């Protein structure tokens, strides 16, 4: 018995010494601390501030789907899967639902992929509905609040509207059953149907290992002024232009295609990540949806993001002061983009670069495995913790019903 104890303490000591570093950044001398609107919240530790209960759903909602298509682990919606894994082994998890502040339902709604790798959202409403029916019938906690203390991760294009086309998504609106729940999603646009109050916006998933292998020495001089790689016209779906990106990307191309300061093209270079590290500004215009993994890449590689998307809500907007870090350009001002960028005072540009160089900023945009302090998982938990304690109106009186279980298109009501 005593031997076992010694062995255990030795092992514990060793475990403390050899910490697994999943991601390491260059330490720079001059960085600035990110102070969010609520104080220095990026470095808050959520452990102890909230408790999350994870429902045990049958594997047809999560494991089996992942087994059918493992590409779900690497595409930009992989956050839902990694969040589940993180919560299962996290310190905020509680196995006693009575003391839980938040309830998490692990249902992978964005894992039905086409051969090309793009997710189809047609079955997602039914899948979500089926999961909610399950939890409401097997546990009393859903009916207690009609989902107001539950949170769901819906990272797809337009969040819980479950469609990739904006008009269709607006038409559907947020799934009626999720009207009271907290939604953790990548989509964010002010005054939009698909962003409800109190949602937490997260960055899309970008693979940390892949980005780390492409890091170049920080002494490489930044010689590109503006950098962008991607489509300007989506010829397959919008041949004349004007729909895609609300015409903003096409405008960028038409105005700046012969400008030597703008390194923009539709090519897919193998040195994409390296080029971003050699650029001062990186364009992050909207596409079919306003969000883009370019923002994450720009932050990781220290390139100042130029966000061209009206009314966009950026990830963790209550914790990260995006106006101080990035440059916001209205879509109607795109023809004047070169004037706008060259007239930013140089001290401001240097300050933005210092803010971007801050490792806590980069860490907050990533989903590393295993999770590290200050990463996106922790920021999500911080966001949830900031919403506590729950308002008393969250708890429904017995017999009171707030949700309409038969609302929505008829196709959604079919069982999954």
């Amino acid at each position: 018995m005593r031997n076992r104890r010694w062995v255990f303490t030795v092992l514990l000591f060793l475990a403390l010494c050899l910490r697994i570093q999943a991601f390491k950044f260059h330490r720079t001398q001059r960085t600035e601390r990110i102070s969010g609107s609520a104080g220095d919240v990026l470095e808050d530790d959520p452990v102890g501030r909230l408790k999350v209960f994870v429902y045990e759903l049958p594997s047809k909602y999560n494991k089996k789907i992942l087994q059918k298509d493992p590409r779900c682990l690497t595409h930009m919606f992989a956050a839902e899967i990694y969040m589940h894994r993180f919560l299962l082994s996290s310190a905020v998890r509680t196995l006693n639902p009575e003391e839980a502040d938040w309830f998490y339902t692990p249902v992978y709604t964005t894992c039905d992929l086409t051969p090309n790798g793009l997710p189809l959202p047609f079955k997602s409403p039914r899948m979500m509905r089926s999961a909610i029916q399950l939890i409401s019938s097997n546990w009393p906690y859903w009916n207690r609040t009609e989902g107001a203390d539950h949170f769901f991760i819906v990272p797809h294009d337009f969040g819980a509207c479950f469609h990739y086309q904006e008009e269709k998504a607006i038409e559907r609106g947020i799934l009626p059953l999720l009207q009271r729940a907290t939604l953790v999603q990548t989509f964010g646009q002010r005054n939009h149907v698909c962003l409800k109050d109190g949602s937490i916006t997260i960055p899309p998933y970008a693979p940390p290992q892949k980005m780390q292998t492409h890091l170049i020495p920080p002494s490489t001089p930044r010689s590109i002024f503006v950098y962008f790689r991607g489509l300007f016209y989506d010829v397959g779906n919008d041949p004349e232009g004007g729909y895609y990106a609300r015409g903003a990307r096409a405008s960028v191309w038409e105005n700046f295609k012969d400008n030597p300061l703008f390194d923009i093209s539709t090519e897919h270079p193998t040195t994409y990540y390296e080029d971003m590290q050699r650029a001062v500004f990186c364009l992050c215009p909207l596409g079919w949806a306003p969000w883009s993994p370019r923002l994450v890449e720009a932050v990781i590689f220290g390139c100042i993001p130029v966000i061209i998307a009206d009314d966009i809500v950026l990830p963790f907007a209550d914790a990260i002061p995006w106006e101080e870090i990035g440059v916001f350009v209205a879509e109607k001002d795109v023809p004047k983009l070169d004037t706008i960028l060259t007239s930013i005072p140089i001290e401001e540009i240097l300050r933005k670069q210092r803010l971007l160089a801050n490792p806590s900023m980069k860490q907050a945009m990533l989903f590393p495995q295993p999770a590290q302090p200050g990463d996106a998982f922790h920021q999500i938990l911080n966001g949830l913790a900031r919403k506590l304690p729950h308002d008393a109106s969250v708890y429904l009186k017995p017999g009171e019903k707030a949700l309409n279980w038969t609302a929505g298109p008829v196709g959604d009501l079919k069982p999954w």
Partner: protein
Amino acid sequence: MKQLTALQQQGRRSNSFRNASSPLDATVDGAIKSPATIFWLVLHGLCCLISLVLGFRFSRLVFFLLFSTSSSPSATTIYSALQTKLPSSGVASTPERNISVGAGGSRVVVGRHGILIRPWPHPDPAEVMKAHGIIERVQTEQRSLYGVKNPRTVIAITPTYVRTFQTLHLTGVMHSLMNVPYDLIWIVVEAGGATNETASLIAKSGLRTIHIGFNGKMPVLWEDRHKLESRMRLHALRILREQRLDGIVMFADDSNMHSLELFDEIQNVKWVGAVSVGILAHSGGSEEGELPMVQRDNNETDEKKSEMPVQGPACNSTNHLVGWHTFNTLPYLERSARYIGDRAVVLPRQLEWAGFVLNSRLVWEDKLEKPVWVKEWEDVDRDGEDVESPLSLLKDTSVVEPLGSCGRKVLLWWLRVEARADSKFPARWIIDPPLDVTVPAKRTPWPDAPPELPTSAEKVVTIPESMEKRPTKSGSRRKRSSRSKRKHSAKVLDDRLSIRHPGDN
């Protein structure tokens, strides 16, 4: 995000049309269609048919002419009034939208927007200059954060002499040195005394230069030339010592090529450093076009990889200096050049000066700071002793620091290319007065020199003729004309020579 599934190719138009009709349906009772909607549907169908016939979207033109507005996508009340009546679908003019059915009307609307293009979509030079200023400032900041802290002055020593290729070589070195981001002192030692030619050339650099003359004409034989160069460099070090110049000494031979990384790398040297030098052992003449090859011990297989030989420090796996890579002269014993301008391989010494960098304090007088393993200057500086390389300054060669990731990076290239020693060129490359046609010496010491070339008068006549004949591309006629003009029997070789501008150097 990009949506490229085949499903959507059912057409956005049809979707948006269905979508468009739904707000209309929403405003009107589901079952009953008001006359207005029927009218607009009919009009829409008519427009579609006409477009089909005409082959372009004529309705767009019509609407544009009817409601000629500027293409501003911001929704205003005028547009909102219009769009409730217009069928919003593919057949529409540019400022066409659907207001998103959202809580608390958003400014941003879904639908087709105009592509804004400014009237003159081309770069403005003033802004380009501003952007370059921004980039430079960012790079200076980067250098101060991640680059060398406390950069030291670089002292470049260049032995030179006036000859045809001097301008070519010296301009190359000058431009490299002008791009070095650190303080620089350029010591130019000139064989045969300081001349105005060289002085005017290096004055163009704008660098701090010390131009010294050295007594003694540059010899024609390569061996002697190396010796004189070493003496010239020692003379420069003597000047360093007298003037107590502080910095890092590097030897920039005027015909070498330096990469700018070299200057960043040598800032790391403490006392003596060595870098790897790529040897471009020039083989003159196009007939022997082979590049020099490194002979390997296992040479049974006939594959000779034409690798460039490299001189420099050799390290073991723990990045300690264990030896030197030097140039193997064995393959070239028969074919090496003996004099300047010879058409044969020009060989470097075992270890060239160019591959070494010194801290200038090594040659200073005061004994306090110098490390123990450096020889006294007086011992080294004795005339008559052939100082082959800076290693002669050291008692113990193991203290040399290998630079450039332990000699793995080649940071400069050694090359000796010269014209023939008796070649002439206009002073300062200014043609004033007009050029005399130079006639090469009739009796040359080189056995394979071309035979007697035509005199100037004939040349003036042949050249325009051969130029005229060339475009006709009749080889025989060309031969005949040149043959007729020349006294000697024509060989193909001679033809080539006569058509090529003769007598140039």
